[in-house]
């Protein structure tokens, strides 16, 4: 079946791209061949004066290349060739002697944008679904079909690097300001306007595009000295953001630089060379695996397909207007646009919660990601009360009160006495087993756990925890709702700590042991950021709150015994009312909410003198504590698959994505070597490093978590 249909409108050929059997258009090899043939046909047809390229998908122009094709690449040569062929197709558009108009509605990403960039004129719809970007670096790749060349030439080096190096997408209005598109129109007239533009360009030639970047643009984008400054600044930013762990942004920067300084031909050559190298490189492979895992999770409801029916959530009730509750409220309103009622015990708390939730919306209003009417509509969805008014009609109630079993049980009982029988009750807890909270529930089939991470609006993960009594309908409803909130959802078992906190716990504990041994705080944290974590474990403790961490630590100790015994540093800190960032006193000092260096007085409090230590040993102790626990929890079926386990660790803890997750890392290192290292650590530091039986077993039969 053909991906393209064409019509002719007064000498203007309209090519409609509608990839059969797919929700979005992708530039597969087959599609490229077909498109090239079409273009050559129109080039040679004297009655065709211009061409419009438009999509037949409802809200998608072209999502990009077919990433499946990348995974099939086995050699650098093959990958280079793929990029080169892409460049050729796109160049064919640019050098066609007739004007080609890109009529863009919906996502126009990666290869899709690169194709649009080669067109002679771009028209986008003003619809919010219309997004333009080059997200390749997010997959460890670079735009390999001329994007690194055409984008900086069109919108200037600075704006282009901003898009390419971060992979972010821009809406139509911003794209117009950048000069990325020539016109923005309503969807209803996109086709007509595009045809008219083709007709106009065919008779009058290309439009004159003046620079949109003003005086600074003249200096920074148009002179080689200016651009040198731009490259240097971009490089520094990339290194700061990636810690040097991700080669793609630097490669993209180089492809842009070569293109601008040495000409398009050299630039294209550098582009496909780098693409080839990156595409078969380890980092990209890992990021692509994560991409596929995340996409698979988007379709995974946690129950076999067709076995459960999700309920529609029209009203959300949230109990507890604290940091979590308000974060859940704001995120739900923003992403799900659901009527959200926030309840707490007094109006002062409610007002604080409403304020925090509204802040999320106000931030977007300020950044022009929401219009004023949208903002007004969303804030109208957000309300609060010190009583249960409005809860009777709630379809989902999320409880986010503080971690106390009795309180949570009481809230559950109150809510059950109020809501309709089909309403779902979700408890947001990080440590308390859901079955304990649900023990006296009248309708335990409607109760489950939804473990959000803090801050809710920014953390991409949600753990959904059914108990043995939770019905499949309840589970699938919660999973779908979490996904609509923009979260990647993993369904995990009702074991203490669930998945994320289970594997985080020994890691943080080990940090406590290191502290008690006098290992300097900055050494511990910098060792782990160099390993690839976004923050070190000590800084993380400060963020989480030492009281919260201690409470969680005790729960884990109780559940798992000696292995998870807290090192004692937290209770000493708490004894000196150090709660972490929230009261401005933790392992670090805080000035006006900003971290201001390690608080050296902590060492005396812990009764240690800071002494230098081997950073690689620090890394080993921390990481292997986590790997070992991951293997144990995995063997207990806390997660349903290695995929969920690794996604949970990456999105929930910030486990380095380029390492693919703890289980992927065990596979990469090899179970045998992991066991070996654990034995060494056990000998030196004690029983807590005793290798998990599952690892021993795996090592014996040279097993893996993922197929090799």
């Amino acid at each position, binding site marked *: 079946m053909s991906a393209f249909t064409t019509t002719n409108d007064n000498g203007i050929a309209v090519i409609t791209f509608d990839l059969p059997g797919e929700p979005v258009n992708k530039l597969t090899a087959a599609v490229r061949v077909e498109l090239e043939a079409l273009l050559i046909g129109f080039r040679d047809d004297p009655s065709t004066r211009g061409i419009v390229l438009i999509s037949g998908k409802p809200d998608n122009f072209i999502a990009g290349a077919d990433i499946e094709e990348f995974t099939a690449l086995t050699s650098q040569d093959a990958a280079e060739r793929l990029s080169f062929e892409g460049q050729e197709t796109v160049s064919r558009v640019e050098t066609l002697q007739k004007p080609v108009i890109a009529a863009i509605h919906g996502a126009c990403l990666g290869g899709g944008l690169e194709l649009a960039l080669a067109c002679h004129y771009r028209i986008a719809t003003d619809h919010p679904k219309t997004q333009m970007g080059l997200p390749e670096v997010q997959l460890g790749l670079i735009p390999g079909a001329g994007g690194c060349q055409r984008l900086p030439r069109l919108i200037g080096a600075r704006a282009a690097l901003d898009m390419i190096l971060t992979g972010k997408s821009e809406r139509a209005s911003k794209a117009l300001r950048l000069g990325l598109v020539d016109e923005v129109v309503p969807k209803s007239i996109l086709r007509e306007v595009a045809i008219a533009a083709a007709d106009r360009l065919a008779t009058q030639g290309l439009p004159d595009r003046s620079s949109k970047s003003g005086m600074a643009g003249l200096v920074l984008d148009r002179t080689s000295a200016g651009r040198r400054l731009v490259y240097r600044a971009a490089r520094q930013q990339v290194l700061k953001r990636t810690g040097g762990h991700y080669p793609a942004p630097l490669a993209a920067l180089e492809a842009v630089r070569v293109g601008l300084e040495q000409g398009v031909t050299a630039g294209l050559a550098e582009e496909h060379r780098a693409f080839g190298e990156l595409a078969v490189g380890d980092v990209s492979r890992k990021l692509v695996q994560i991409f596929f895992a995340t996409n698979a999770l988007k379709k995974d409801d946690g129950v076999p397909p067709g076995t459960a029916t999700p309920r529609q959530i029209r009203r959300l009730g949230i109990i507890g207007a604290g940091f979590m509750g308000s974060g859940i409220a704001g995120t739900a309103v923003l992403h799900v*646009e659901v009527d959200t009622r926030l309840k707490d015990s007094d*109006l002062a708390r409610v007002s604080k919660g409403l304020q925090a939730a509204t802040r999320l919306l106000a931030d977007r209003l300020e950044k022009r990601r929401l219009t004023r009417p949208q903002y007004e509509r969303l804030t109208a969805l957000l309300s609060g009360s010190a009583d249960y008014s409005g809860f009777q009609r709630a379809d989902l109630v999320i409880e986010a009160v503080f971690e106390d079993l009795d309180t949570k049980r009481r809230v559950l009982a109150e809510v059950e006495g109020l809501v309709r029988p089909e309403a779902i009750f979700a408890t947001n807890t990080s440590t308390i087993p859901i079955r304990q909270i649900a023990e006296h529930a009248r309708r335990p089939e409607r109760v489950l756990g939804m473990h959000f991470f803090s801050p809710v609006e920014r953390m991409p993960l949600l753990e959904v925890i059914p108990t043995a009594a939770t019905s499949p309908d309840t589970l699938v409803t919660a999973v779908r709702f979490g996904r609509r909130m923009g979260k990647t959802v993993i369904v995990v078992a009702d074991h203490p700590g669930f998945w994320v906190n289970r594997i985080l716990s020994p890691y943080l504990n080990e940090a406590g042991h290191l502290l008690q041994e006098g290992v300097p705080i900055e050494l511990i944290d910098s060792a782990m950021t160099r390993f690839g974590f976004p923050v070190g474990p000590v800084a993380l403790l400060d963020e989480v709150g030492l009281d919260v961490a201690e409470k969680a630590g005790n729960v884990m100790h109780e559940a798992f015994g000696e292995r998870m015994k807290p090192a004692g540093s937290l209770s000493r800190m708490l004894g000196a009312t150090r709660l972490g960032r929230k009261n401005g006193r933790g392992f670090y000092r805080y000035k006006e909410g900003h971290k201001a260096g390690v608080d050296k007085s902590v060492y005396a409090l812990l009764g240690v003198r800071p002494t230098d230590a081997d950073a690689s040993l620090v890394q080993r102790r921390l990481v292997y504590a986590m790997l070992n626990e991951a293997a144990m929890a995995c063997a207990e079926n806390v997660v349903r698959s290695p995929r969920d386990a690794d996604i949970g660790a990456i999105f929930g803890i910030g486990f380095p994505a380029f390492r693919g997750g703890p289980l992927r890392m065990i596979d990469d290192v090899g179970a045998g070597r992991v066991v070996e290292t654990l034995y060494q650590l056990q000998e030196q530091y004690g029983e807590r490093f005793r290798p998990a039986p599952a690892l021993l077993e795996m090592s014996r039969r040279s097993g893996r978590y993922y197929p090799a």
Partner: protein
Amino acid sequence: MVDTRPGRRVAVVAGIRTPFAKSGTVYRDTTAVALARHAARELLFRSEIDGAEIDEVIFSQVVPSVLTPNVAREVSLLPQLPPSVPAYTINRACASAAQAINNAADQIRLGNADVILAGGVESLSDLPILHSRRFSRTLVEASKARSVGQRIATFGRVRPRDLVPVTPAIAEPSTGETMGQSAEKMAKENGISREEQDRVALMSHQRASAATADGRLTREIAAWFGGRDMDQIVTEDNGIRSDTSLEALGKLKPVFDRKYGSVTAGNSSPLTDGAAVVLLMSEEKARALGHEPLAYIRSYAVSAVDPGWQLLMGPVYAVPKALERAGLTWKELGLVEIHEAFAAQVLSNIQAWGSQAWADRLGLPGPIGEVDWDRTNVAGGSIAIGHPFGATGARLVTTLANEMRRRDVEFGLISICAQGGMGYAMVLERR
């Protein structure tokens, strides 16, 4: 007494309002639309009704913003309601919200609707301030100018006095008399003393203060989260003075006639912001949805007098009409709510209702009735609570209906005087 009027019986199911606040205080930075939406949304939550049940929204606003002239539509566009709920805004001056409620009741009675949200709002903190006519004309001409030169020339004709803004005044357009001057005239012509007026004001504050303390007033209030950071939590009306006294009221200077007057800021209702809204249903619908109505609407009547005469005497005509339509006498009323625009007006109205001369004038066999303060304005009135023009009618219905239920009273009356010489009366029943 058997109700023989045609159509369906209409239930007052619930009512909610924002706290009433003196203009320029807690609602200084918000809009009338926001107040109206807040009250309506909280009413939906508290009555636990599905927005899809609402057939129409009727609101009132006496001084609407030129930017949102149909505030009712802004309310019906709340995301808790389907966008298909139609809405309109009315104006019957200070009786507006009562009129909105009766319009709703009439539609329900006729079978055109089952459930209607009716209420009103006023924000004198969100006033439309106008340019002078001359300056407006200049702006229009400038916008039509064909060249910059022409535009400058147009502005060249502007004189400083053209730039003085025009604020809406609470004055009768037909007579030029302000409301306060009218009250002053009524006090003089009806022989109402300063002390009598101050006593009414004192009672208003004392009763409102008690009703705030024991929750009778606050239960009809939905808390407002104000201020830039939503940290200003308002749960009570801010005009009620628990500490006022006859002496304190007596020290205030008359405002409208400094020399011989008796009407002061203390015995008048203050300029107020606020919104109030009532949920009305047909009796059958209320039953079907499982609501226990607070009261039912039995009758209403409107009257008007020449504004050049005693402006606020309309209720003297409206009340007997509403009672007649209800088939009731004054004696059968268990509770009465008289809107207190001015103590002088309240006392003038009461005087007329109790007088044989007025009975003769109205062609009634005897006086309409003597006021019994134990059954009248039992939770205070507009002097203490405040008077957002567009909202007061809905507050009175809510307060009366709640109190009728609390005391298990069978019949209750609302009396409202309104700008333009109009009077308004409504009778509620419980059984």
